[in-house]
């Protein structure tokens, strides 16, 4: 039982009546608002079947699917690059070496506090001034990797510090070296703890790839933008694309929650608050 549940008494007869009335009223209000929205769409002629029909046609769907594929590729590439980088940064930040620790700390704190779009712009129009001009795919993936590695480092660090210190001490006391303790005792347990949070972090990566819209990398958002230039059905396209993103991300976060319940126990304590909110 959680704290928020134990706040309320079991409702008595009068409270139950009040709750029933409130239920009815709130249902009516919700229905009225929904009806208003639908009415508004209908009045503007946006519900006309031909404006939505194109999303059942093969060529349009293939076009958008290609965009979704590019989204997946960019997100996956960023994840593959950011995970090891994040782990190294976390280990660096937790290490005893003075300079290494400071460098990693500054790196993490800086990339956590800089907007991804600014880093993307650095790669798009800043670095080319110095002759560094990678493919547009990398101009999106490298900034995402840099920024999310900082967040992942913090997740790894939270996972490592969540381990009882007796684990590492036991390893040291049977004569393992520091590196051996990290490899054989700390990391296997810490990684188990952070797996759900890492999967949840994929949601942020998928969201981050929408910046392809700003740099013209043809992921789902940019693709839908290109599609509207052709069909002119703006609100339909953008609503459907938004729904695709929401469904994708809901699936990912449900998977993360399922993992969390399987690894139950320590992982739950990390929660979402251990790291910055992934708004964006």
């Amino acid at each position: 039982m959680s704290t928020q549940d134990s706040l309320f008494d079991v409702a008595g007869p009068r409270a139950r009546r009040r709750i029933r009335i409130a239920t009815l009223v709130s249902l009516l209000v919700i229905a009225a608002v929904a009806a208003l929205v639908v009415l508004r769409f209908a009045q503007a002629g946006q519900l006309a079947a031909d404006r939505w029909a194109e999303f059942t046609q093969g060529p349009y769907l293939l076009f958008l699917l290609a965009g979704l594929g590019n989204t997946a590729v960019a997100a996956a590439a960023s994840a593959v690059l950011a995970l090891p980088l994040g782990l190294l940064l976390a280990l660096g930040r937790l290490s005893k070496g003075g300079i290494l620790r400071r460098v990693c700390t500054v790196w993490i704190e800086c990339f956590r506090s800089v907007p991804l779009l600014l880093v993307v712009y650095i790669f798009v129009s800043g670095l080319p001034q110095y002759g560094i001009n990678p493919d547009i795919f990398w101009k999106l993936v490298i900034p995402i990797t840099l920024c999310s590695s900082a967040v992942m480092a913090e997740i790894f660090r939270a996972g490592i510090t969540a381990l009882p210190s007796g684990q590492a001490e036991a390893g040291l006391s049977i004569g393992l070296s520091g590196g051996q303790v990290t490899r054989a005792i700390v990391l296997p347990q810490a990684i188990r703890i952070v797996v759900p949070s890492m999967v949840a972090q994929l949601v942020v990566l998928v969201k981050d790839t929408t910046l392809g819209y700003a740099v013209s990398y043809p992921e789902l958002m940019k693709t839908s933008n290109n599609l509207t230039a052709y069909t002119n059905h703006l609100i339909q396209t953008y609503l459907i694309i938004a729904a695709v993103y929401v469904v994708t991300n809901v699936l990912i976060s449900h998977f993360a929650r399922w993992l969390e319940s399987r690894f139950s126990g320590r992982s739950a304590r990390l929660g979402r608050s251990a790291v910055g909110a992934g708004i964006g």
Partner: protein
Amino acid sequence: MDQLFTTYLGDLLAGLWMTVRLTAVAFAGSLVLGTVVAAFRVSPVAPLRALGRFYVELFVNIPLISLLVVVTFGLPDVGVTFDLFTCAAISMVLLGAAFTCEAIRSGVNAVPVGQVEAGRAVGLDFFGVLRHVLFPQAFRSVVQPIVNVFIGILLSSSLAGVIGVKDLTLQVSEINNKAALGLTTYLLAAFAYIVIALLAGGLGSRLEQRLKVLR
């Protein structure tokens, strides 16, 4: 470099001011709406609870750019138009509120159940429990998550540039399209973001210290 300070300093400062304004408006709005949604999520009225859950699931998972585009370029199709700043602020508040709601809920749930039960056992009513037991403790554990939401909103304000709101990031990008100034402007902007984020973080830690009780 000289060119930066003679010609473009005004643009940079205007961008910074826009970023600060947008962040402040969106953060304030998120706090208000997020509290309402959090109240919905714990209310005994089932449809409101469902609405709250739906709201959070929806807006935690939607990318901000996608929402910005719907609000800015989609809504005019159904005859609803706002100016760009309002579009950006609305989108950011909608998203920020979902994250604020989760932060508040995690803060409330961080208070051990026994605390609330003890409060009720000594005869406090619902509001008594809230005032004397729950809120003082929840505030403390909610500070850091709320600071995280603030920083998230600050960083996400850069996306408003995508729909043409001239915030710091867009100004920097436009300055560099007009005059190649190398990395200087980018680093200046990055520095500004980092300073604001650090200030918020520091303020949060001090507030947390102030509210801390020794057990």
